[in-house]
């Protein structure tokens, strides 16, 4: 009997596949073993998989056709692609996309950590406020939120710092302070914070209560307990989800194009609006998104490996 990665056929792999051959083959083997022949005289013959080869051949043909199309179909216009892939205007747009991602992630997760600990707090008030925030920002579509932030100046003409409900010290014109780009960062970050909060909370909850008890019983200071005992262990379950979020935020920045911000997708649209070469320019954006997502995935692998220290699996 051989071990294969095929779907299990039951404890006796032989008979169902090949009923006429296997049963007569068995008794002689048993007899040989019974007659005292050494096990080194028996040869194992793996099961053959003819249909697997058929499937491989069919898949290979389809793949070859697809690649052939990519190379030979003139509609892809690879020369246009090459011309624009590293054009300064595109590179600048890639840089804007990266900035939106980095600021959105950093502010989003910073706020998310605060919200997560508010939701884990003993105070009903803090828990409710955090829950309300998460509820609201998960309920409103991102694009609607972005348009709200973009029109913030319509609601509040002036932002003022000072005593709450009292006199103010500094005042800013909202239009100047919250420009299009910062409105976009704000929108992405506030939206991201709601999701980040739940991811961080899930990670903290995944750390066994025994860990906190042990840290408390040893008298380790509270902040140190969090930083040294809880967060490193929480990171193991936070990281895969966080990487998902960062990657989806990275691609989600393309939504900001509705606010006419010069990020990658908007810039590509501008260019093909001018020269009409839609497909090659979409490919420019696609390849940049794929490249950078791949880089993030590689980074994720190494960060996860760092936090897997001492893990049994």
């Amino acid at each position, binding site marked *: 009997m051989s071990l294969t990665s095929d779907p299990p056929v039951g404890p006796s792999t032989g008979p169902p596949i090949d009923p006429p051959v296997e049963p007569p083959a068995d008794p002689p083997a048993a007899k040989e073993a019974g007659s005292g022949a050494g096990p080194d005289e028996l040869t194992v013959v793996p099961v053959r998989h003819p249909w697997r080869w058929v499937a491989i051949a069919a898949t290979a043909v389809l793949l070859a056709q697809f690649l052939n199309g990519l190379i030979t179909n003139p509609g892809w216009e690879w020369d246009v692609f090459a011309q624009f892939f590293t054009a300064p205007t595109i590179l600048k747009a890639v840089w804007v996309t990266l900035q939106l991602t980095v600021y959105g992630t950093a502010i989003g997760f910073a706020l998310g950590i605060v919200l997560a600990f508010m939701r884990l707090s003993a105070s009903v008030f803090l828990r409710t406020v955090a829950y309300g925030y998460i509820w609201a920002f998960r309920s409103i579509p991102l694009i609607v939120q972005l348009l709200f932030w973009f029109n913030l100046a319509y609601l509040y003409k002036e932002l003022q710092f000072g005593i709450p409900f009292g006199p103010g010290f500094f005042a800013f014109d909202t239009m100047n302070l919250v420009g299009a780009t910062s409105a976009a960062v704000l929108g992405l970050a506030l939206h991201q914070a709601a999701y980040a909060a739940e991811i961080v909370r899930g990670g903290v909850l995944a750390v066994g209560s025994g860990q906190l008890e*042990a840290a408390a*019983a040893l*008298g380790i200071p509270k902040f140190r307990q969090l930083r*040294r005992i809880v967060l490193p262990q929480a990171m193991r379950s936070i990281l895969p989800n966080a990487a998902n979020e960062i990657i989806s935020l990275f691609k989600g920045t393309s939504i900001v194009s509705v606010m006419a911000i010069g990020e990658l997708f908007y810039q590509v649209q501008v260019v093909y609006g001018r020269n009409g070469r839609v497909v090659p320019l979409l490919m420019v954006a696609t390849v940049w998104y794929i490249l950078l997502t791949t880089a993030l995935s590689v980074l994720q692998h190494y960060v996860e490996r760092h936090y897997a220290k*001492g893990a049994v699996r």
Partner: protein
Amino acid sequence: MSAPSDAMVEIRSVHKKFGSLEVLRGIDLSVRPGEVTVILGPSGSGKSTLLRTINHLEKVDRGWISVDGTLVGYRRDGDKLYELREREVLRQRTRIGFVFQNFNLFPHLTVLENIIEAPISALRRPRKEAVASAEKLLERVGLSDKAAAYPGQLSGGQQQRVAIARALALEPRLLLFDEPTSALDPELVGEVLDVIKDLAHGGTTMIVVTHEIGFAREVADTVVFMDEGRIVEQGPPADVLDRPTQERTRAFLSKVL
């Protein structure tokens, strides 16, 4: 409240409820320095809860506990007890070592890092000094060669010995053991009990919750039998284990012996 007595641990009329369930219904107990007290009793008798109140992992609802002449978890002013801030409770706990049933080693830290964490962060010992004494402790529990290993690479018995070394690293005045061998394979129980016996003979004050009657007989100065949140009887092992005066104690011992 009495003036500081010669007792290391003083427990007076301690009550504790979980919701409507009364887990502790008035516990009085004192433990003298250098003594080994073993608490026996059926599941749900409140013995683990009692142990956990001694280092304030559980708050008491009524009564008080003092360790080494200091109230645990509270500050007395007149006839009121004020709850201490967490920072102060944490500082108190550094004088009380606690060993858990499930070891609760930090899985992402090596054996050595597990042991030096509290001395460095809670007692502000220099790292070099903490490492040197951790190495001595590992030698004492017979695990010198495992300093760089992660807990996941050790057997249950080895993990519990590391947990004991970790508790000892704070040089506590009192050691509390909560069923230290209940999560171990039978053949690993001996190595952990040997370490605890060794500490007992060395004069460490300890309170041990366990089901190991043989250990109680051999090591305990006092055996305490608990049931339904009360102390049913207490005394030297020869009395409580061999000539129990209470019917409940007899019934329990006849099942476990």
